[in-house]
């Protein structure tokens, strides 16, 4: 199994395992789902520092997209709080 395959397996186990935990605890907030998945993905990306340079450049694109999504979630929450 290559290091890229291992990365995919670890990420899939983390995300789907968290999904099971959310279902088990009865969590209902969509913004929390998105935030936790994004943070988990960013954390796993940092752990796999030995991925090849090409793979890391692709992951940087993923990170940018996920951070943009996270920013949207945060802004939405701020607007919701300010609007009362």
């Amino acid at each position, binding site marked *: 199994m290559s290091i890229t395959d291992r990365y995919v397996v670890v990420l899939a186990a983390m*995300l789907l395992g968290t999904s099971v935990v959310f279902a088990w605890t009865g969590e209902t907030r969509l913004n929390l*789902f*998105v935030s936790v*998945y994004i943070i988990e993905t960013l954390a796993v990306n940092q752990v796999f*520092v030995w991925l*090849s340079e090409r793979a890391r450049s692709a992951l940087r694109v993923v990170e940018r997209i996920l951070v943009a999504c996270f920013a949207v979630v945060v802004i939405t929450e701020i607007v919701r709080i300010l609007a009362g």
Partner: protein
Amino acid sequence: MDRNRYIRLGAALMVAGACILATSLLVLGSHPGMSTGTALLVLGLVILLLGKTAPGVTPELAELLVRVGHQNLGRLLEEVGMQSRAVYLPSSVAGGDARAFIPLNDGQCATPGTQRLDDRLVVFCGEAAEDVGLLVVAPGTAALSLLEYPPGATMDEISVALTQVAVSSLRIARGVDVHDHGDSIEVRFRGESVPYGSAASAIEWCLGSLAGSVAAALMAEAKNRRVTIESENVDGSSRTVTLALQAE
């Protein structure tokens, strides 16, 4: 997994995630469904973009090209009668890119001056007629292009760079350990797996094994010094390469 499989899997997961998320959000009102859909969407995006970085060349074509290059260099070395060990040069000495210098006679031109060498195949390294050698691209020197940044000079930085090249990119070993002994450095490749048949004996003798070449080239570039492969020992699936750093 190959490029197409990654792309297909990533696309399938993204479509499935989007469908599950939309259905759960708009029709079913199912929170576990929303959670699973979001997870699949993120996972699919990551796999899809990772798949686009996988090499497009088939393994058969890559192996063929490697064999052709190796056989031609082996024939050239045997024809010229070179039997000396290569000196790995950093890019600052060898015309812009890291190169391996094979002197005509062993020990001769072991330290080919401090001046920049011309980036040509046949290079003179002294005043005498026999002070000549071949400046070639070794597998290790070519592998340096796989690094994002030039390797740092500390042992930790060298260890990370070697792991990145040998374990992650080239997959010729499962792990790398580096031990510093002053002017000699020991590099141990654990779980070595060379992807093609053994290199021509002339190449292996002059340039070292694939793992040895990678270690020597990376060490030369990191330390900005000339490096030779002193010895290589194979013990089961482990290979220990002893590198000698030449005087600055």
